[in-house]
């Protein structure tokens, strides 16, 4: 019998290969997608040389321009509304003794995480259809409100986490020195809370930017965002132009998520 040199209690047979395979499988499709966005040819499987032509094509495509602007407007507005509402909600629900209705508030805030997206999408379709008939308004606010709602829990989480980790004595000292609640909030709480707020806003922005299902159901005619535009394209012959758009979206998400990671780790 060969001597087993060194007994590793953490070792489990096959676990490390599966884990490494898992990481490879997780990244391979994304990497291939990014690589073919630079393909000179029409194909998304046969490499014909490096080129930026599909980025140019996407850049000059009016529908893409249109959808990009709409995506950014909706994500910007929705993350602003969601983050503002989440800051207030976090202030109300963090560091307080147990109160009546806390379960209701918890359920309400987290509801978008629990209810399947397709159900929310259908509900919004029905509800907004009624309002559209009643008011005749078919603008972008339906999308912005719908996005705001499902972004709230994502904005709320990091803000609440930040608030929980904050030093209460500073605020008490501020109030002690005759600060009005608003001034204490602005001069003491908010500066400390800021990384959490920023992190929440970024998360909300990413979530809004990535949404497909609810947008697909809520949007009026001609209101494609980038993801719903792509969803429509997937039914046709796909050129690397879709890869190029995807790569840009991916890059935005990755940068924001990394920034979120750094922010939520930053020391108080």
């Amino acid at each position: 019998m060969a001597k087993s040199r060194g007994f590793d209690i953490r070792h489990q047979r096959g676990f490390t290969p599966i884990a490494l395979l898992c990481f490879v499988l997780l990244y391979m499709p994304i990497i291939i997608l990014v690589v073919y966005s630079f393909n000179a040819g029409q194909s998304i499987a046969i490499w014909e040389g490096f080129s930026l032509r599909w980025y140019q094509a996407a850049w000059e495509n009016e529908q893409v321009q249109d959808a990009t602007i709409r995506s950014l407007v909706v994500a910007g507005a929705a993350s602003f509304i969601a983050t503002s509402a989440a800051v207030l909600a976090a202030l109300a629900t963090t560091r307080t003794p147990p109160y009546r209705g806390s379960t209701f508030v918890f359920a309400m805030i987290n509801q978008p995480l629990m209810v399947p997206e397709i159900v929310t999408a259908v509900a919004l379709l029905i509800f907004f259809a009624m309002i559209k008939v009643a008011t005749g308004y078919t603008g972008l606010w339906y999308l912005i409100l719908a996005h705001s709602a499902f972004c709230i829990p994502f904005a709320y989480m990091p803000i609440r986490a930040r608030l929980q980790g904050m030093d209460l004595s500073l605020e008490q000292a501020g109030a002690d020195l005759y600060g009005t609640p608003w001034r204490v909030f602005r001069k003491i709480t908010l500066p400390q809370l800021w990384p959490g707020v920023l992190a929440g806003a970024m998360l909300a922005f990413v979530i809004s930017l990535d949404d497909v299902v609810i947008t697909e159901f809520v949007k009026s005619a001609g209101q494609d965002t980038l993801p719903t535009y792509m969803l429509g394209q997937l039914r046709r012959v796909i050129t690397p132009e879709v890869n190029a758009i995807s790569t840009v979206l991916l890059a935005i998400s990755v940068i924001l998520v990394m920034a979120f990671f750094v922010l939520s780790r930053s020391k108080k």
Partner: protein
Amino acid sequence: MIEVTNVTKTFGSGADAFTALKEVSVTIRQNEFFTLLGPSGCGKTTLLRTIAGFIDPTSGSLSLEGRDILGDPPYLRPVNTVFQNYALFPHMTVAQNVGFGLEMLDKPRSEVQATVREMLELVKMTQLADRQTSEISGGQQQRVALARALAPKPKVLLLDEPLSALDFKLRKEMQIELKRLQSETGITFVFVTHDQEEALTMSDRIAVMNEGRILQIGGPRDIYDHPAERFVADFIGDTNFVEGTIRAIDGEAAEVELPSGKTVASRRQEGGPQAGAVTIAVRPEHATLQAGEGLLSGTLSNIVYFGTDTHYHITLDDGHAFVIRRQNQPDARESYAVGDAVGVSFAPGVAQVLRD
């Protein structure tokens, strides 16, 4: 029974390398309560984990009952451990914990149950057999850990500072309990501790370790009365160190000349120094105080009353400090005062010549 031969263990490599065991050799006998004693970081736990099979030595050999067990994984070694934090399985009851080892050895159910009952009785935990391990006290967890490790009837039981988490009173109780368990089961115990008192009260033999080496192996009395090295003398109990010069040796006897010019019959260890300047060690309770001249002379600098005994702090003529401990007698009056000129004496053979 357990033969550890020239075992060296180096962790890491290059500049970060740290050698936890340096050429350690020791023989642990059958049915012995053997203690590895030393300060934290001395390598005692590394040695214990090497025997258990969790650490693979860099070099050297290890055998149990004459069989080389170095290549065996922990689950093939007939050795069980009582872990420092007990490591009881939180998702099992007390009885399930105790039966775990036997179950893993695929013993029949009836045998497992019988042994579990026997073990719980041995550690007086029968009442709590069906409790969750989180529902019992620290002392009780300690007993369960013991029962669990004893249940498979290992050839050797390894105990890694098992009493360090207990409070003082419980620790005293468990010391007696451990000794009883050892003599009742007849299993060899290898006990790791940094507490010299624990080592002295329980052990048949003690190995004193420091910086990865075993400095001295012997019975508690032997280690206490005849420390071979300065570290051993210092680590176990209190000691006075006096500089001297060997004038003559004869086996274990040595004539040592003291700074005062007088000579005293001392003991030396085999392989110890044979000539020249040496340090000798004298326990405070082995020296006597007298008015006037002794082997050494000096001035009383402090008298500290401790109830059971009194400590006399003396500044010797050469400036070194010396402490004498004297048992108090009922209604005795203190006959010395600070500032008195006093002499220090000790019987022939009391002073130990130390290796450096």
